[in-house]
C-alpha cells in the first residue's frame, strides 16, 4: 500500500449469475490526483464503482481507505459516505424543487431544530470558495445542469470526502460548462481530494487526468501515467489489441465494394441527439459507423431512421428528396432499422414470435389491411427456417427466447419488409459466437446476392472489418474520418478513433 494512497483496492472479485464481472481487479487512488477509469461496455467500470460505493458487495478482495484502520467493509452507500467516499452520478440525484442550501444539507442536519439561516450562510461560503455561480436560496432546478452537478460535488466536498467519484459527469454539458467543471475538479485536486473520473470522452481524459486505469472484460489491463499512454494506445488497450501485433495485419474478407447508384444520402442531417453530419450509401454497399461507446454512432443511424426528433438536414433516397421525421417515413422509403437496445427498442416481449416477425410488414401494409393468419404463419415459418430461429412454436412469447434468437426475430422482422437499405446497430451484441458468424455471413449475402445496402455498427472492430467496405469513424459525436480499401486495418481504425497526436 503506497503512502500517499487514499484508496487501495486489491484483487476485487465480483460474480453475477452467468458472468464474472470483476476478476482480481486492482485499483489505487492517490491523494490529490484525478484518475480516469476507462473501458468499453461490460469492462467492469460500473461494477467496480458499485462495489466501492456499497451498492454491490464484493465476492473477494480487500479495500483500504486512508484513515480507516485495517480493511474497509462497505455494505451500503451510506457506509461508503461515512468513510469519505462520495459519488456524483450522471443524472442529478438531488431535489430540483428545493433550494441550493437545502440540497447541500438535506439528510445531514444535526439535532432536532434546523437552523436554515446558518446553513444558508455556510452554503454561501462553500459556493464562494469553490467558485460555483449559484445562490444559497436559489431553487436548484433553476440552475443549469452543470451548476447542479457542481452543487452535488460541493455537497460531497463539504462532507469531507476523500474519494470523489464522478460518473460520466460531462455527458450532458456543453464545452463551456465542461471547462467550468474541470476547473472545479482541479481545485479539489489541489485540496487533496482523490477523484475517480469515469467518462467515454477521450479528449477530456487527456485534458484533466493524471493517471488512467484501463479495464477490459472485468480484468485489469493496467494503470498508466497519462504521459506514458498515447491516445491511440489507450484505444488499443480498451479494445484489447496490442498495437504492434496489429500494425502489419491486413484484414481480408469477402467484402463487397459499392458499384451502384447512391441509395441514401443525407446532408447536414441532425437530430435531438446527433450533431449534423453528412452520409451516403450505395446500392449493395456495406458500410459502418465506428467509434467508441458514446461517440455518436448509434445517434447518427437513429437520425437516419427518424427514431429521434430530426432537427434539420436534407435527405435524398434514390435521388428523390424525402422527409424522414418518424420511423414510418423511413420504412416507406425502404429503410429498416435494427436497434441497438434489443430489449428496450426491439422486441415486444409479451407478443408471440409470429407477431414480432410480421409487425413491421403489417404496419407497412397499413392499419386496414391485416394479413391473414395463414399468410402470417407462412412468412413466420419461412424466416424461422431461413435464420434457424430456435423457438418452441410460432406462438411462444418472444421474451422467453434467448438473446441471439430474439435478435434473429427482429432481423427477420426487417428482412420480411425487403428493405433496400438496412441499418443494423450492434446486431451481434450479447449473442454467441456461432450466431455472430451467421449474422455476419447473412449481411454479406444480402449485399452481394440481393444488392441490399447495409449500415453495420459493432463494438468489435474485427467484425466491422470483415463486413464493411467503408468505415465512417466517429469521435466525441463528430465524424472524424472515413476509411476504405487499403486503410481498412485495425491499426488505422484505432488511430483514427484516437485522433490527437497520431
Amino acid at each position, binding site marked *: 500500500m503506497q503512502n500517499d494512497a487514499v484508496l487501495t483496492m486489491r484483487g476485487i472479485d465480483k460474480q453475477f449469475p452467468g458472468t464474472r464481472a470483476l476478476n482480481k481487479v486492482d485499483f489505487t487512488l492517490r491523494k490529490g490526483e484525478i484518475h480516469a477509469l476507462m473501458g468499453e461496455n461490460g469492462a467492469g467500470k460500473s461494477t467496480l464503482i458499485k462495489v466501492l460505493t456499497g451498492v454491490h458487495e464484493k465476492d473477494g478482495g480487500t479495500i483500504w481507505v486512508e484513515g480507516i484502520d485495517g480493511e474497509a467493509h462497505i455494505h451500503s452507500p451510506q457506509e461508503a459516505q461515512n468513510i469519505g467516499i462520495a459519488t456524483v452520478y450522471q443524472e442529478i440525484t438531488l431535489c430540483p424543487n428545493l433550494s441550493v442550501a437545502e440540497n447541500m444539507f438535506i439528510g445531514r442536519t444535526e439535532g432536532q431544530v434546523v437552523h436554515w439561516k446558518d446553513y444558508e450562510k455556510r452554503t454561501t461560503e462553500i459556493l464562494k470558495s469553490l467558485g460555483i455561480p449559484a445562490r444559497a436560496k436559489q431553487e436548484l432546478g433553476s440552475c443549469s445542469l452543470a451548476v447542479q452537478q457542481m452543487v452535488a460535488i460541493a455537497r460531497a466536498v463539504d462532507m469531507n470526502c476523500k474519494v470523489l467519484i464522478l460518473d460520466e459527469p460531462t455527458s450532458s454539458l456543453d464545452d463551456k460548462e465542461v471547462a467550468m467543471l474541470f476547473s472545479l475538479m482541479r481545485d479539489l485536486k489541489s485540496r487533496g481530494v482523490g477523484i475517480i473520473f469515469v467518462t467515454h470522452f477521450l479528449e477530456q481524459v487527456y485534458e484533466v487526468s493524471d493517471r488512467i486505469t484501463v479495464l477490459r472484460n472485468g480484468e485489469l489491463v493496467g494503470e498508466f501515467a497519462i504521459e506514458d499512454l498515447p491516445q491511440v494506445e489507450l484505444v488499443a488497450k480498451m479494445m484489447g489489441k496490442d498495437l504492434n501485433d496489429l500494425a502489419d495485419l491486413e484484414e481480408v474478407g469477402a467484402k463487397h465494394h459499392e458499384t451502384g447508384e447512391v441509395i441514401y444520402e443525407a446532408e447536414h442531417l441532425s437530430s435531438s441527439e446527433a450533431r449534423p453530419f453528412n452520409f451516403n450509401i450505395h446500392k449493395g454497399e456495406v458500410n459502418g459507423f465506428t467509434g467508441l461507446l458514446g461517440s455518436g454512432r448509434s445517434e447518427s443511424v437513429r437520425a437516419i431512421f427518424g427514431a429521434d426528433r430530426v432537427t434539420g438536414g436534407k435527405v435524398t433516397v434514390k435521388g428523390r428528396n424525402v422527409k424522414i421525421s418518424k*420511423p414510418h417515413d423511413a420504412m416507406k422509403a425502404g429503410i429498416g432499422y435494427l*436497434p441497438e437496445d434489443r430489449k428496450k427498442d*426491439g422486441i*415486444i416481449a409479451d*407478443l408471440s414470435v409470429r407477431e414480432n416477425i410480421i409487425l413491421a410488414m403489417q404496419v407497412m401494409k397499413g392499419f386496414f*389491411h391485416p394479413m391473414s393468419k395463414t399468410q402470417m404463419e407462412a412468412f413466420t415459418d419461412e424466416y424461422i427456417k431461413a435464420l434457424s430461429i430456435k423457438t418452441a412454436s*410460432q406462438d411462444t412469447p418472444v421474451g422467453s427466447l434467448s438473446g441471439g434468437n430474439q435478435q434473429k426475430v427482429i432481423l427477420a422482422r426487417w428482412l420480411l419488409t425487403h428493405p433496400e437499405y438496412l441499418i443494423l446497430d450492434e446486431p451481434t451484441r450479447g449473442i454467441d459466437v456461432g450466431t455472430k458468424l451467421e449474422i455476419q455471413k447473412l449481411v454479406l449475402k444480402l449485399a452481394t446476392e440481393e444488392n441490399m445496402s447495409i449500415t453495420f455498427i459493432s463494438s468489435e472492430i474485427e467484425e466491422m472489418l470483415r463486413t464493411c467496405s467503408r468505415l465512417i469513424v466517429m469521435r466525441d459525436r463528430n465524424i472524424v474520418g472515413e476509411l476504405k480499401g487499403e486503410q481498412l486495418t485495425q491499426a488505422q481504425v484505432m488511430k483514427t478513433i484516437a485522433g490527437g497526436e497520431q
Partner: protein
Amino acid sequence: MVPTKKRGKSGSLSQLIIPLTALAILLLFNLIRDPGFYAIKVVTNNDGNSVLSGNLISIIDSASALAIIAMGMTLVTAACGGQDISVGAVAAISGAFFVKVANAGGTLTIGSVILGIVVAILGTIAFMMFNGTLVAVFKIQPMIATLILFSCGRSIAYWINGSATPQLISPIIQAMGMTIPGIPIPTPIFAVALMAILLGLVFKFTNLRLYTQSVGINQGAARLNGINPTAIKLLSFVILGVCVAVAAVIGVSRLGQLNHKTLLVDIEMDAILAVAIGGNNLGGGKFRLLGSVLGAYIIQMLTTTLYAMSVPPVNVKAYKAIVIIIIVVAGSPVIKNSVSSLVNRIRTGRKLSAAKGVK
C-alpha cells in the same frame, strides 16, 4: 423442427381460467342453494307481451351496460396502461345529449331517437377525445386525466338539459330499455351482442389488436416499427366513447328518464374490476375482451345472488368486496406463480417416485 400447427390458444386461454372458474363456482353455488334459481319462465308483461323471465335473464340483462363499458375500458387499459374513471360521469353527459335531441321535437319519433343516439355517440366521443388528448398527447396519468370529467361530468349533464330528471315516455324507449313487442329477450342483451360483433369485426378487419398490444407492451419499440402510439391511444378512447354512449342510452331507456346524478353511477369502478377479473393486466399490453365481458357478468351475478339470498342492500357491497378480494388475489401473479411451481413440484415428484418404483 418447428411445430406450426399448434395454435396459441393455450396461452390466451389461461387468462380466462380465473373468470371461468369464478363463474362456474357462482353457478354451482346457486344451483345447490336453490335448484330453482335458473328457472326461466315465459310470462306476460304489463303490455301483454310474452317475455322471458328468471334470474339468469335478469343477470344477463342488468349487466349489459357494464359489459359494454368494460369492453371499451379493456382497450384503454391495454393501450394506455391505465383506466378511465370518468365513464360514469361521461355516461350522464351522453344520456343528456340523447334525451335533449330525442325530445327536441316535443314528441319522440324513431327518427328523433336515432338522431339522439347518433348525437350521443358523437358528443361522447368528443368528451373522450378530451381524456384521450390529456393521456396520449400530454402524457398525464390516465387516472388523473380522467379525474377532471369524473368530477364535473354530471354537472355538465345537468347544464345540457336544465331540468333535473327529464322524462322519456314512449313505446320506442320502452322497447329499447326492456323488450321489443314480439321478441321475448330484453333488448339490452342485443346491444351487448351488437357491440361485441362490431368490435369483433374491427379486430378482424384492422390491426387494432396488434397495434394496441404493441403500444401497451413496449411503446418505444412500437414507434420504431412505424406505429403511432398517440393515435392508437386516442383511438382506444374514441372506442370507449362509443361504448359509454351506447351504455348510457340503455341506462336512460331502462328507466324512461334521465337522472344525471344516478345514471350508471359507480360504473367506472365495476368496469375496471371487470377488466381485472377478466385476467387483463391493468398495466396494459395483452388483453382479451371476452375476459372483461365475463368479469362484468360475474359482478352482476354476485349482486343478484346476494339479493336472492335476502342480504340487506346496505350489506351487499361488503359481501361483494369479500368475493372480489378472493377472485383478484387468486388471479394475482404471486398466487399464479406459486400454484404453477406447486404443480411442477407435484409433477416432478411423481416422476421421481415413478422412477424409484421402476428401480
